């Protein structure tokens, strides 16, 4: 099925979207047609899975992004500076030009006290304060991953720290790249597009159409089984997992084409139902992730 699909121009072009954009952005920076812009990457209330995912990017890879496309000013997982020195770099960007990428939700209970990202001038800096101060002044804000986009796992019931997505705290547009984690292509392609052309075309939920325009179900290599009513009865069956609770029919993103881990595979390709991790409402509204006694 996949070997046949590779001849489809729609699929081939989609596979190249991110690398074409990143290469164009790098060329434009190299030829001084555009400026290398500052990038701040904030890790808030989450698992740091999105920065790990970004580091796993391939064609385009993270090295290209970090060395040739943007200037990464702050990322607590990657930068050499630490403590007060790191926070100084972060807050020195206020009033300057920067693009803000945020992973993780924002804890709001008790003034955000349940997520302190550092100390600066003797004060604890909460994720809540960081996003309020840095979010409004950024040239663009990109919510990377489901937690930043919609609260995600950090905001799952009972949500003890009252986590919310970034958009809930900012009176400005936030470009959303939901996914648990966000695919490296989705972030790098969106960032490259911003550098080259400004804001990309977005859907009604502020997701870039170039990555989030089709349902997983519509591009799924097992879709013919759904149409024929041939359903998997247990994990491992290589047919449509609709009856097991697959959320591909309600999840809008291009996993079946792009795949993961250097484009090796993706959940359904490995006989696991889609759990809707890139859909708003994940995880609470995507449950149950697996079900065995359906009709």
């Amino acid at each position, binding site marked *: 099925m996949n070997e046949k699909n590779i001849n489809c121009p729609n699929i081939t072009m989609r596979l190249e979207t991110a690398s074409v954009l990143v290469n164009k952005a790098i060329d434009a920076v190299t030829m001084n047609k555009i400026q290398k812009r500052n990038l701040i990457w904030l890790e808030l209330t989450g698992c740091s899975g999105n920065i790990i995912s970004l580091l796993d990017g391939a064609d385009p890879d993270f090295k290209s992004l970090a060395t040739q496309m943007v200037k990464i000013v702050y990322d607590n997982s990657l930068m050499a500076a630490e403590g007060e020195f790191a926070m100084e770099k972060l807050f020195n960007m206020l009033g300057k030009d920067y693009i803000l990428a945020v992973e993780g939700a924002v804890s709001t209970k008790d003034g955000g006290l349940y997520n302190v990202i550092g100390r600066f001038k003797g004060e604890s800096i909460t994720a809540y304060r960081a996003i309020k101060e840095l979010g409004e002044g950024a040239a663009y804000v990109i919510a990377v991953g489901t937690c930043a986009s919609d609260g995600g796992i950090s905001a799952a019931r009972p949500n003890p720290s009252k986590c919310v997505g970034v958009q809930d705290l900012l009176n400005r547009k936030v470009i959303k790249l939901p996914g648990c984690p966000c695919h490296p292509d989705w972030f790098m392609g969106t960032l490259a597009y911003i550098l080259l052309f400004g804001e990309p075309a977005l859907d009604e939920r502020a997701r870039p159409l170039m990555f989030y325009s089709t349902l997983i179900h519509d591009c799924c290599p097992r879709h013919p089984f759904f149409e024929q009513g041939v359903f998997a009865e247990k994990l491992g069956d290589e047919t449509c997992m*609709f*009856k097991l609770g697959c959320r591909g029919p*309600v999840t809008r993103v291009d996993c079946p084409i792009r795949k993961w881990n250097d484009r090796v595979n993706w959940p359904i390709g490995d006989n696991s139902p889609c759990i809707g991790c890139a859909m708003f409402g994940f995880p609470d509204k995507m449950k149950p992730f697996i079900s065995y006694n359906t009709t």
Partner: protein
Amino acid sequence: MNDREFYVNSIFKEMHSTIDSLYVTCNSCTKNTLLNSLRKNISDLSVLLQGAQNDVQKNNTANAPDIISSPNKSFTRAELSRYNGKNGNPAYVAVNGTVYDVTNNAAWAAATHFGLTAGRDVTREFTSCHSGQPILSRLKAVGKIVT
């Protein structure tokens, strides 16, 4: 299902898919292609409708099968709750007093949909999320709710 019903259902499915694509495409060439596809679908439906009318006249009988069946079963809320898509039961939901079959509806995998379960009246949730969207016309109506 006879051949004609099969073709009509296939065309409706294709039209819904085309309309979904029209919502998200920005490219004018793609839009024109999709609109042409809709025109072709309408043309095909006209031919099928004409054929159905000819058959009805030919048989001259009031018992000719309708292409679209009408729901006639009544459900209490307690009865509806049994159709939860579990243990061999089909999955039904009620919206605005009409009961719909969502057993094989793609968005109702494992008889659940965004935290909702089948066997319930979901009018309030439907209105808050899907108002104005052409969703109910795609579902098979199987009955009415009685109070």
